[in-house]
């Protein structure tokens, strides 16, 4: 029974981690411009992240080391320095985007420009990290995150043609706007397969003191939680396709367009639900990405770390998230459009995948870390597939970023 509670909590938590400004924005754009045609990207991204999260959790539960520890220890500092730098800088961008997401929600709710909200949001997030415990952050915020289920409800209420939805789960070539089609699929993949997600998950497993008895729970949480999150993303995409596209809005490049998705379904409450979903999902992600920055640095250099300790007991650790949060608030404060930043950083995330995913192949096959719980053929095939995908995306993204994008 206790395990069951644990699993359901874990599932809820992973939903909170999965759905953030990136998956919402990319799914909304894709639905508006291409209807159901890009559902396959969400499905593919979700399957990939299920595998990576399961491995990250298994690695932590068996070896009591995080993925980050593993990369540094197994490959040495000279290799580690590249994923460290790439992940740190990219996460800083994602953190900005998430803070921007909360700021947009607050602007929509109050009419006060989003720039003004960046610093208060960063401060509130910092305060929670400063005073809160891991359990509070992990569970509290993600429980609230269940509000995002309203997208799934809306999608069902709109009575989509389910055969067309299923057809969208199969990749197909676009009839128009080829460059933007591929750019969007890359952004969706980047939004689903985020390094911060599996790195945070493995740190969380250590914070929650997982051991081998959690291997089953880990599998259930990874599978159910990520599918759950993916389902909500598909929900956003369906709603965007059925509401925005049918009203003639096929270009989503202004965040003011987003609340319109839910208004025809729920009326005024649709507006409220959208604002609440955006604010909560992005705020949860702000906390997680901010904390992951501190985990990354502390684990990479071998300092003490842990969200449950008092800041004065690990000054280095708390200094990293403090500095990260405030640095990330600056671009939004200066008025950088959060929606653009989001799409841009998601595409870059996809391109950075090989750096963080290649080590999985070795860490999860290393008996000294995972013993008999090594990867099977299926998991290894999945990792190799994700690496290959990452390389293709890296090659495709950069030119698309410059010429084809939004």
């Amino acid at each position, binding site marked *: 029974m206790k395990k069951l509670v644990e699993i359901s909590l874990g599932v809820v938590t992973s939903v909170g981690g999965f759905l953030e400004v990136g998956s919402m924005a990319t799914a909304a754009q894709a639905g508006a411009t291409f209807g159901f045609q890009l559902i396959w990207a969400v499905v593919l991204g979700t399957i990939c992240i299920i595998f990576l999260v399961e491995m990250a959790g298994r690695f932590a539960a068996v070896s009591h080391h995080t993925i980050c520890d593993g990369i540094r220890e197994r490959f040495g500092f000279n290799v580690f320095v590249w994923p460290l730098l790439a992940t740190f800088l990219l996460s800083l961008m994602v953190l900005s985007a998430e803070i921007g997401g909360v700021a947009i929600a607050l602007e929509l709710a109050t009419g006060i420009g989003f720039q003004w909200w960046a610093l208060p949001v960063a401060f509130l997030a910092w305060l929670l990290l400063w005073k809160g415990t891991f359990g509070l952050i992990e569970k509290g915020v993600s429980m609230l995150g269940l509000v995002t289920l309203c997208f799934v409800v809306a999608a069902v209420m709109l009575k989509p043609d389910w055969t067309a939805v299923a057809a969208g789960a199969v990749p197909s070539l676009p009839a128009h706007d080829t460059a933007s089609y591929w750019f969007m699929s890359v952004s969706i993949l980047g939004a689903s397969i985020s390094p911060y997600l599996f790195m945070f998950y493995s740190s969380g497993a250590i914070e929650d003191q997982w051991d081998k008895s959690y291997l089953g729970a880990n599998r259930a949480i990874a599978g159910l939680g990520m599918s759950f999150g993916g389902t909500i993303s598909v929900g956003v995409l369906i709603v965007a396709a059925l509401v925005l596209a049918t*009203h003639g809005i*096929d*270009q989503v*490049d202004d965040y003011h*367009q987003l609340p319109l998705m839910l208004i025809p379904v729920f009326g005024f409450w649709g*507006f409220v639900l959208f604002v609440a979903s955006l604010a909560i999902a992005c705020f949860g992600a702000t906390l997680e990405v901010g904390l992951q920055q501190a985990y990354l640095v502390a684990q990479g250099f071998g300092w003490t770390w842990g969200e449950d300790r008092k800041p004065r007991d690990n000054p280095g650790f708390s200094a990293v998230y403090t500095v990260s949060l405030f640095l990330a608030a600056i671009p939004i404060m200066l008025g950088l459009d959060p929606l653009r930043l989001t799409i841009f950083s998601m595409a870059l995330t996809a391109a950075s995948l090989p750096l963080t995913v290649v080590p999985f192949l070795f860490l999860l096959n290393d008996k000294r870390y995972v013993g008999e719980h090594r990867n099977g053929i299926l998991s290894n095939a999945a990792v190799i597939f994700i690496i290959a995908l990452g390389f293709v995306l890296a090659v495709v993204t950069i030119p698309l970023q410059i010429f084809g994008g939004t």
Partner: protein
Amino acid sequence: MAHQTPALTFSGRHLRLDYLCALLLLGVSAGCSSSDRIEQQSQTAASAAQTVSMVLDAWTSGAAPFAYTAGTLQSVGKTLADAEAQIRSAETAEPAEQAALATAVKDLSVAVAHAGAGLQAGNRAGVQKAKQDLQLASRSLAAAYAKYFAPKP
């Protein structure tokens, strides 16, 4: 003389790389021609107009709060002004069609501005009127767009 050959091949390889880069750039800039820009901006303008129409409907039925509605109108107004400027500045072989597109987008801007003013004054009738203007302008934008991209004899 003989010992210079390797250096020459080396620089030759560089030269070829340069060509490749130049070709790539050329191809890309050809792909991003001004006709593409006009197409893109027209689509953006059309979407923006539909956004305004939707948000005004929501406001009228009490589903969208005032601040949000006003913010959207303002933001869309900027988008439309930008789209108009880009369409006007693009170089094209069909100046008449281009001008028609730009005028339609301009009309959209004016309608959105009227809607904004009506909204600020709480003048529902004014907002309703502006919405009708918006729909008219949308239709002329669609017509101009079709004409611009119609196969030429």
